[in-house]
């Protein structure tokens, strides 16, 4: 058996079996016997011992380890004696009150959970079965708790195994369980073990009365010292550099590590089984074929060495002691668990010889003189690095995705804005097509206009006719007012009527450039009026000189259609049309002052009246005005006197108050210039301006 032989990597199947030759799996913790034979053996020894003690012969203590165990228990009892709490509780225990195990259950959430699961399923088993089950569990747990102080953990394990056996017999023989199917019986037996062990876990796992914890620490230290051992040393074919293999190895390691977190013995055992299955998978992957038992053990040793599972010994001893013995003696679980025991015992006892390496080298490694960075270690570090790298990469990926999304959205917004612009453009164009702007001359300046027009070779009559027409009918033409508070003017409402009309020819309706603001104003003016009712033109009239209002009455436009239709003739006259820049941010208020003043030749190519083109000049550009004026001595000279004086301010309106302010003027200005009959002072204003 392994305990006696030199540890070897190659273990024959027979070596795993009970040394009694009964055919069941043996275990190092059972001195190489199977669970059953070990117990028989123990019984024999006990009887021998009691005989010996009767004879008073103490020299033949069974074994040193037994002796140690006894000593420990004695010392435990001694220390217990000095701890009052212990005294109290043990006296309590002697009374054997049943509430003790109830306490355990209450304080153990795991047991609670399990019980709830059981109760939820009891309908399947029946009330009588449930009652009997709980009775047996209580009898078992109370028995264990009674004996905790008095018996060694091995004896407690015996008690547990006996109870499992008793309950198993009861399941098969008692009348209560007659109606229960064999599968449910298996479930009940399993649950009996699970439930009672979870309840008693704190008392039975790594009990302080044993040296289990010391064993854990020593094997942990041993494995740490053996961290240099690699697959090559173990003569096992696990490739330490293959990525897939490493993943599988990690799975196996994680399975084994999970054992410490489980409470029920069968759950711990299940972890071992899972780990071993993963090991088989690793081997299958590495050698691409069926795995022989010979290759399995070295691979498992490798896994145990690399995993260094927490409290390894405690866990294995707990399973050995309190797992239903039949489970460990046969089947897959039994086989794998026995293998694990072999692996651990190999690790505990391995020498240079068992690794086929010179003693010196082995010692150098063990003492830490020589450290070798194995592929495994490097892989571990590299893996962590890779993990961080991947983490960062995924972070960057997320960022770049978000950036793309932002860029797309920006582009979309841009497109939307462009579309909106086009839309508005189209709308404005269509509106302007329906309602072209016509600026017509005023009566007061008619003589001048006529004079000027006369100087132009073609079409003087037309102009004259048109102009007079307008005057006569007091047309509602588009009116641009520049209201200035002129110093020294007695008129409370001095208005300078700036007529650009005579200067620019009216292009065909299609030529009128669309204006954003025109439509806007027409639609919004009522609201604007309302909100700005308080600001009246009269108020403005008292403002200083610098205050310049561009009163644009767009409400006229709506009314204009009919007039224009009426004045079909005049429309073709070289009256000025102004083409507001649709995209001027300042809107019509400005475009009136600016764009119409810059009716470049390009803008007027389709003007129906060639002579009118001659008058395509730019009002604010005085040079041009002067040039034309001086060269031709037209009435423009006089007409332009007004603009020359008052135009510079509009270009830089110091107190330009924006649309809303203008909007407020809308109601104040009559719908047509017909009211200029009441504004007879206008020419005066113009003349007074001239004098300025």
């Amino acid at each position: 058996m392994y305990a006696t032989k030199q540890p070897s990597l190659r273990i024959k199947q027979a070596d795993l079996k009970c040394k009694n030759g009964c055919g069941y799996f043996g275990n190092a913790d059972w001195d190489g016997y199977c669970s059953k034979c070990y117990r028989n053996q123990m019984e024999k020894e006990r009887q021998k011992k009691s005989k010996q003690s009767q004879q008073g012969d103490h020299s033949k203590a069974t074994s040193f380890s037994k002796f140690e165990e006894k000593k420990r228990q004695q010392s435990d009892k001694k220390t217990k004696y000095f701890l009052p709490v212990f005294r109290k509780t043990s006296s309590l225990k002697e009374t054997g009150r049943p509430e003790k195990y109830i306490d355990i259950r209450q304080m153990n959430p795991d047991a609670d959970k399990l019980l709830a699961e059981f109760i939820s399923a009891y309908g399947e088993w029946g009330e009588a079965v449930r009652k009997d089950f709980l009775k047996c569990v209580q009898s078992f747990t109370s028995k264990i708790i009674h004996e905790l102080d008095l018996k060694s953990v091995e004896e407690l394990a015996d008690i547990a195994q006996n109870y499992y056996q008793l309950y198993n017999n009861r399941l098969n023989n008692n009348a209560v369980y007659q109606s229960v199917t064999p599968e449910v019986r298996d479930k009940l037996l399993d649950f009996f073990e699970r439930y009672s062990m979870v309840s008693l876990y704190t008392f039975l796992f790594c009990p302080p009365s044993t040296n289990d914890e010391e064993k854990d620490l020593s094997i942990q230290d041993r494995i740490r010292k053996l961290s240099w051992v690699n697959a090559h040393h173990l003569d096992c074919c696990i490739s330490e550099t293959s990525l897939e293999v490493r993943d599988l190895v990690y799975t196996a390691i994680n399975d084994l590590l999970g054992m410490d977190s489980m409470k029920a013995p069968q759950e711990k055992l299940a972890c071992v089984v899972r780990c071993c299955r993963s090991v088989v998978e690793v081997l299958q992957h590495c050698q691409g074929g069926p795995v022989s038992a010979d290759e399995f053990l070295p691979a498992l040793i490798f896994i145990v060495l690399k995993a260094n599972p927490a409290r390894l010994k405690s866990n294995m001893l707990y399973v050995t002691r309190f797992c239903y013995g039949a489970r460990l003696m046969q089947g897959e679980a039994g086989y794998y668990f026995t293998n694990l025991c072999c692996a651990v015992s190999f690790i505990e006892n391995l020498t240079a010889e068992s690794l086929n390496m010179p003693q010196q080298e082995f010692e150098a490694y063990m003492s830490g003189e020589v450290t070798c960075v194995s592929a495994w270690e490097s892989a571990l570090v590299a893996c962590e690095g890779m993990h961080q790298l991947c983490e960062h990469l995924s972070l960057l990926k997320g960022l770049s995705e978000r950036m793309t999304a932002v860029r797309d959205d920006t582009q979309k917004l841009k497109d939307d804005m462009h579309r909106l612009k086009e839309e508005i453009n189209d709308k404005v164009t269509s509106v302007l097509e329906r309602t072209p702007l016509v600026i017509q001359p005023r009566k007061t300046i008619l003589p001048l206009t006529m004079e000027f027009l006369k100087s132009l070779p073609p079409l003087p009559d037309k102009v004259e006719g048109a102009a007079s027409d307008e005057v006569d009918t007091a047309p509602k033409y588009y009116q641009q007012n520049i209201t200035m508070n002129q110093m020294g003017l007695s008129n409370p409402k001095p208005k300078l009527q700036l007529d650009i009309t005579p200067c620019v020819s009216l292009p065909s309706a299609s030529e009128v450039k669309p204006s954003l603001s025109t439509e806007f104003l027409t639609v919004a003016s009522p609201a604007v009026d309302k909100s700005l009712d308080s600001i009246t033109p009269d108020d403005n009239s008292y403002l200083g000189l610098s205050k310049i209002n561009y009163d644009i009455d767009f409400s006229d436009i709506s009314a204009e259609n009919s007039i224009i239709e009426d004045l079909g003739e005049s429309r073709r006259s070289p009256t000025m049309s102004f083409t507001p820049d649709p995209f001027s941010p300042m809107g019509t208020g400005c475009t009136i002052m600016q764009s119409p003043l810059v009716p470049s030749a390009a803008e007027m190519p389709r003007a129906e009246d060639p002579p009118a083109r001659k008058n395509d000049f730019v009002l604010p550009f005085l040079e041009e005005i002067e040039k034309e004026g001086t060269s031709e001595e037209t009435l423009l000279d006089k007409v332009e006197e007004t603009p020359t004086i008052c135009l510079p301010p509009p270009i830089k309106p110091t107190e330009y108050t924006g649309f809303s302010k203008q909007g407020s003027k809308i109601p104040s200005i009559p719908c047509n210039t017909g009211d200029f009959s009441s504004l007879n002072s206008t020419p005066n204003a113009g003349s007074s301006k001239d004098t300025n």
Partner: protein
Amino acid sequence: MSAGPYNYSYIFKYIIIGDMGVGKSCLLHQFTEKKFMADCPHTIGVEFGTRIIEVSGQKIKLQIWDTAGQERFRAVTRSYYRGAAGALMVYDITRRSTYNHLSSWLTDTRNLTNPSTVIFLIGNKCDLEGQRDVTYEEASKFAEENGLMFVEASAKTGDNVEEAFLETAKKIYQSIQDGRLDLNAAESGVQHKPSQPGGRPGTAAGGDQPGRDNCAC
């Protein structure tokens, strides 16, 4: 491990957490063995160590779980957070990235432990002053903002190592005295007396039950 059983009246469970390579295993080794383990192999999953200390005349057994920093073993290490009375959160003062990860470690700890768990921040490797990457002031501020105790230590020289473990124990002991820490709670991380036969089963139940949630098989 050197002391016999029952030489103590409490068991406190600690966990040590932090990035890989910050010196968690070295700190534990320094505390339990009073030695610096320069070439300590990488921890896989968890390792543990114990030592008996004395706080206010009471002997207390510290059961310390040293966890692996690697993400791959997070599932295993997480099960040990539950039922920890103290958590030592370690970073390496010479590597800023380990400091930057503290907030995620802290979140994990707060989520997986109970509210009474004492969290102690350790800036390790303070012997490497020349390579310092994180100032004392900065970490101190972080600790204050998050209500952590803080010390800079060196597993190599042993500076402040004892202090960190002992201060944590004192704070836990204080919590017990104040009644802030309920010994009967299943996962307080404190066991009054080791799991004793018949003795106050309620308090004992708080013991060895890391990862009870894993019993899903």
